[in-house]
C-alpha cells in the first residue's frame, strides 16, 4: 500500500510543483501587465501592495470562476455556488477524451497529433445521427455516440494502416489528416444535408432532444452525462493497458518495439489497433461535445480540443488518471479565466501563459529540481521523446 501511495506521490510531485511555479511566475506577468500597478512604480510600498492585490484578485476570480463562487450561492444555496465547477467539468469532458486519445498513443510509442481531425469526424457523425433521425431517447443517443466512435475510429485507423503498411510517419500523416478533416467540415456544412435551413453560415441543425445526453444536475446546469462517459473511457483505457493482453502488447511495442517484435508481437497490428482506438476516443469526445453541450455542429466545433489534448496527455504523463486530472485542470483554467477577465481586468489569455509554463516546467524537470533543490524527483519519461523516433 505504501508503495502505491509513494508511486502516486512520486508521479504527481513534478506536475504539482510545476503548477505552483507556473502560478508564481504568471503572478508576475499579471502584476507587471497591469497599468494600475505600473503607474505606482515610483512608490515601492504601494506598488507591492497593489501588485499583490491585483494578482490576488485575479487568482481569486480564477478560483471563483472554476470551482466555487459564493456570490452565486448567496440566496440560492451552496449547490448553486458550485455552478463554476459544473462548467469546469463540461469544458474538461471532451478534453479528457481527446487527452486519452493522445495518451494511449504515447503508450504504444505513437505520437497522435490527429485528435483534432478525429474529434471532428466524431462530431460530424454524431451530429448527423442526432438531427437526421428520430429514435426513442436512449437508443438515439447511443446510436449517435456509436456513429461518432466508429467513424472516428476508421479515420484514425487509416493512419495506423498507412504507418503499418508503408512506414509513413504518423506525425506527418495525422497533421495532414487534420487539414483534411478541417476542410471537410467546412465543405460538409455547405451541403444541403448539413446546412441548417434558413442559414448560410456554417451551422448544422440542432440535434433533436432524444439524442441529447441527459443533464446530471437539472436544467440550470449544463453538466451532462458526458463526464461519466469520459471517466468510464479513462477506466477502460487503464484496464486495457494494464489488464489485457492487447494493452500488454501496446505497452511492449511502445517501450521497445524491437524486443516486442522479436517476441512475436505484431507491431503492425498494434499500430493499427492503437490508432483506431485513439480515433474512437477522440471521436467519442466530438460526439459527447455535440450531444452534451453544443447540440449543433459548427465549423469550429473542435475548438482547440485536439491540440490541447497533446498538452493534457503530456501533463498527465500519458496515464489515464493523470490525463483526467490534467484535463480538469485545463477546464478549470479556461472557465476560471472567463471570470478572471470579467471580474478583474486581467485578460483571459493569461491562462494560456499558465498552461504553457506548466508544460514547460514538466518538460524541463531539471529546472524544477534545481529550484526546489530536490535530487530524486521522478522524471522517467521516455514517452515525450518517443514519437519522433517511432
Amino acid at each position, binding site marked *: 500500500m505504501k508503495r502505491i501511495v509513494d508511486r502516486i506521490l512520486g508521479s504527481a510531485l513534478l506536475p504539482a510543483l510545476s503548477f*505552483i511555479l507556473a*502560478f508564481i511566475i504568471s503572478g508576475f506577468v499579471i502584476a507587471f501587465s497591469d497599468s494600475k500597478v505600473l503607474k505606482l512604480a515610483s512608490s515601492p510600498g504601494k506598488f507591492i501592495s497593489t501588485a499583490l492585490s*491585483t494578482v490576488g484578485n485575479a487568482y481569486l476570480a480564477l478560483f471563483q470562476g472554476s470551482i466555487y463562487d459564493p456570490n452565486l450561492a448567496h440566496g440560492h444555496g451552496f449547490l448553486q455556488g458550485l455552478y463554476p465547477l459544473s462548467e469546469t467539468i463540461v469544458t474538461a469532458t471532451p478534453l479528457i477524451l481527446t487527452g486519452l486519445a493522445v495518451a494511449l498513443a504515447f503508450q504504444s510509442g505513437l505520437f497522435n497529433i490527429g485528435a483534432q481531425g478525429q474529434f471532428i469526424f466524431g462530431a460530424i457523425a454524431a451530429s448527423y445521427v442526432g438531427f437526421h433521425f428520430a429514435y426513442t431517447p436512449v437508443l438515439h443517443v447511443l446510436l449517435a455516440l456509436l456513429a461518432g466512435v466508429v467513424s472516428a475510429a476508421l479515420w484514425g485507423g487509416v493512419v495506423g494502416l498507412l504507418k503499418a503498411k508503408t512506414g509513413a510517419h504518423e506525425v506527418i500523416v495525422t497533421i495532414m489528416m487534420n487539414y483534411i478533416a478541417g476542410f471537410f467540415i467546412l465543405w460538409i456544412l455547405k451541403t444541403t444535408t448539413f446546412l441548417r435551413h434558413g442559414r448560410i453560415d456554417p451551422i448544422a441543425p*440542432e440535434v433533436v432532444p432524444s439524442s441529447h445526453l441527459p443533464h446530471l444536475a437539472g436544467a440550470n446546469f*449544463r453538466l451532462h452525462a458526458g463526464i461519466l462517459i469520459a471517466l468510464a473511457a479513462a477506466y477502460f483505457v487503464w484496464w486495457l493497458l494494464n489488464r489485457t493482453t492487447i494493452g500488454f502488447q501496446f505497452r511492449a511495442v511502445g517501450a521497445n518495439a524491437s524486443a516486442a517484435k522479436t517476441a512475436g508481437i505484431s507491431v503492425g497490428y498494434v499500430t493499427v489497433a492503437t490508432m483506431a482506438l485513439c480515433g474512437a476516443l477522440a471521436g467519442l469526445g466530438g460526439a459527447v461535445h455535440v450531444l452534451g453541450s453544443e447540440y449543433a455542429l459548427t465549423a469550429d466545433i473542435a475548438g482547440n480540443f485536439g491540440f490541447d489534448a497533446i498538452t493534457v496527455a503530456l501533463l498527465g504523463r500519458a496515464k489515464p488518471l493523470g490525463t483526467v486530472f490534467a484535463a480538469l485542470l485545463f477546464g478549470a483554467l479556461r472557465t476560471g479565466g472567463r471570470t478572471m477577465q470579467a471580474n478583474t481586468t486581467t485578460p483571459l489569455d493569461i491562462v494560456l501563459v499558465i498552461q504553457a509554463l506548466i508544460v514547460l516546467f514538466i518538460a524541463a524537470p531539471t529546472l524544477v529540481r534545481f529550484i526546489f533543490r530536490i535530487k530524486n524527483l521522478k522524471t522517467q519519461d521516455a514517452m515525450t521523446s518517443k514519437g519522433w523516433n517511432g
Partner: protein
Amino acid sequence: MGDPSGGNILKKTIKLVTLLAAATLVAGVAVAPASNAAKIKACVVLDTGGVDDHSFNAGSWAGAQAASNVATVSYLPSSSAADYAPNIKKFIDQKCAIIIGVGFSISSEIVKAAKANPTVKFAVVDDAALDCNADYSVCNPVANVKGLTFATNEAAFQAGYLAAGYSKTGIVATYGGAPYPTVTIFMDGFAKGVAYYNKVKGKNVKVLGWDPAKPSAGTFVGDFSSTNKALQLSQGFEQQGADVIMPVAGGLGAATAGQSLKSGKSVTVWVDTDGYYAAPQYASVLLTTVAKGLGAAVKSAIVDTAKGQFTNKAYVGTLANKGVSIAPLHDFSSKVSSRLQLDVKVIGQKIASGTLSAK
C-alpha cells in the same frame, strides 16, 4: 541518492502555498471592487475575432467604452462557438444590465438567453436577433433584444464604384471570412457598385471572389483567424490581375493590406471602422473604408439602457442615418480623379434619398 528530500519539498510547498494564500487574502481585503451606484453594467461578448481585430469587435468594444460615463463596461473574448453560451451566462451572473453580443453567429445564443432572462436587456451587433423556428420560416422579435444591423451594401456600393473607377487593370476582387449574411452584404454591394460603374461608363471591370447571382461560388477564408489562408487568397487575386481588393474578414484584412504594402500591386478597401485610424500602418495602401457605425450603435444601446429608454426596436444603419458611410480617401484623395470622387459622392446621395437602389 537516498536523501530525505520528501520532507523538504513538503515544507517548501506549504510555505509557498501559505504565502500565496496570504497574498490572496490581503489582496481580497485591500481592494474591494469599486462600485459606482449610478452606473449600470454593460457587458460585451465578442466573437472569435478577438478584441484586437482592428475592425468589427474592436469597433463594438470602442463604442461600449465610449459609454463609460454611464456604464462600467467589460468584455469576454470567445475562442470558439462553444464559448458563447458560457460567456453570456457569466455576464448574466454578473448582473449586467445590458449584454451585447458581437456578431451574427452569437445571435441564437443571445436570443436563447434573453428568453430565459427577461429582466436583462440584450443587443446583438450585426443581426436582427429574431426568435425563429427551426427552419427559419417564422421569426418574431423578442421583447428584451435589440438587433443592431447595417445596410453596409449601400456604402459598399459606393466603394465598388470607386474601386472600378480606380482600377487600372480592370479587375477588382473581394473575399469574405465566412459566408455570413453580414459579410456577403458587403460583397454584394461592392459587386453591384462595380456593375453600376460598368453600366454607366460602358466599361467591363471584372469582380473576382463574388458574383451576386452565384453566392455559393464566393471566395471565403472559412473563418476569421487563418491569416495564412487570407494571405494566399490575396496573393492569388493579385496574380489574377486584381489591383483593388476588399477583404470582409475582420482582422484578416490586415493580411491583405500587408500584401498590398509588400507587393505594391494592389490597394485594399478596409471595412467596418476607418482603417486610416484603426490600422495606420497600412494607411498608404488603404483606398477607403466601408465604415459601419458599430461604435455609435453600441453606445446608443447602452446609453438608452442607462436612461431606462431601452426598446427592442431594430436599429438599421444606412447612408441616410449615417449608420454606414464610406470613409474619406485620406492619402488617396490626390490619386483619385476629382470626377470619380464627385461621382461616388453623388451616388451616395442618390442611395440615401432612395433614388438609386444598392440592392
